[in-house]
């Protein structure tokens, strides 16, 4: 039984390189977002989630966004957004977490060939634009339902005021997805101390 669980975990987390990259992505998501917390919607969780799904796959598709948000959400609710009611916190947190997990799964669906090529980075960057808009529409709906609706604000008004924030979010995605995408594709493809010549270029590494 114990050995069975171990095998499941081993398969879910992948090889050592995948695990290291997964932890790197979590660190990038947490540290990047924390450092830029005064810049609304400029964040690295989106890029990390997309890359986790598309480059690492396996459990990292949801492990990266969930772990990063497990650290960031309590931080945000206890500092920048201190005082919000439990209902608003629970509701918004649900929309944020499900939104990023959705991003991870979409990344997994894209599955570019894990090669350090311009085409791979361009594909990830291009797809990040509609996915960022979809994510913002989803979370704006959550914000309307749990925060602004009780004030009599319509969904249309909430979406209207969301526009500049979505532009910032698009800016964030266009910077961080190609930046970290290039870095992680390079590391994934060429890695560090290759154990054998065949390990210097990796193909799609999925379950």
């Amino acid at each position, binding site marked *: 039984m114990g050995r069975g669980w171990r095998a499941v975990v081993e398969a879910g987390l992948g090889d050592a390189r995948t695990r290291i990259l997964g932890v790197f992505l979590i660190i990038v998501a947490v540290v990047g977002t924390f450092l830029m917390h*005064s*810049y*609304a*919607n*400029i964040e690295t969780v989106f890029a990390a989630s997309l890359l986790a799904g598309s480059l690492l796959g396996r459990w990292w598709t949801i492990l990266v966004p969930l772990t990063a948000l497990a650290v960031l959400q309590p931080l945000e609710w206890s*500092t*920048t*957004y*201190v*005082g*919000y*009611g439990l*209902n*608003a916190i629970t509701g918004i947190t649900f929309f944020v977490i499900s939104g990023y997990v959705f991003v991870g799964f979409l990344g997994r669906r894209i599955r570019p060939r894990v090669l350090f*090529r*311009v*085409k791979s*980075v*361009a594909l990830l*960057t291009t797809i990040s634009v509609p996915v960022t808009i979809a994510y913002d529409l989803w979370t704006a709906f959550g914000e309307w339902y749990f925060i602004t609706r*009780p*004030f*009599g*604000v319509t969904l249309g008004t909430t979406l209207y005021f969301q*526009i*500049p*924030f979505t*532009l*910032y979010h*698009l*800016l964030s995605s*266009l*910077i961080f997805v*190609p930046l970290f995408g290039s870095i992680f594709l390079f590391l994934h493809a060429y890695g560090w101390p290759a154990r054998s010549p065949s390990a210097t270029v990796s193909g799609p590494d999925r379950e």
Partner: protein
Amino acid sequence: MALRLSERQQAVVFAAILLTAIAGLYATTQLLQPAPVQAQVVGSATLDVRGDGWSIRYAPAVTTNNTAFGILSEASARLGFPLSYAIFQIPQGVFVTAINGSVNGEGGRYWQYWVNGVYGDVAADHEALHDGDVVLWSFSASQDGM
């Protein structure tokens, strides 16, 4: 005959498109930023703060803190009540989180402001005041200030 670009040429084209998109988006976000309020002397402005079972009135003869947030901050310093807020760089602006112990979210109420009865729709430090303006900060659960 299809044009085949080398990896390096593709990188250059991609970088050019990406940088153009980033520059365009950045320019758009800057255009959407509310203009900063220039400090100037304002006379006979009045501030009313209505919290949870308490109220504060502040009416300086003149002030150079000529924004909805500036006069609140000035009142906080002069009258000695606590004021908490978060500063955002993008988009620029302050977000008031607590005044005199009443914290956003308590009882589903949040700090909101009105100037001459008009609901504030920009960050309070970007709402300019003029002579005789009446600023209301209310800890309320709706835009009606109730």
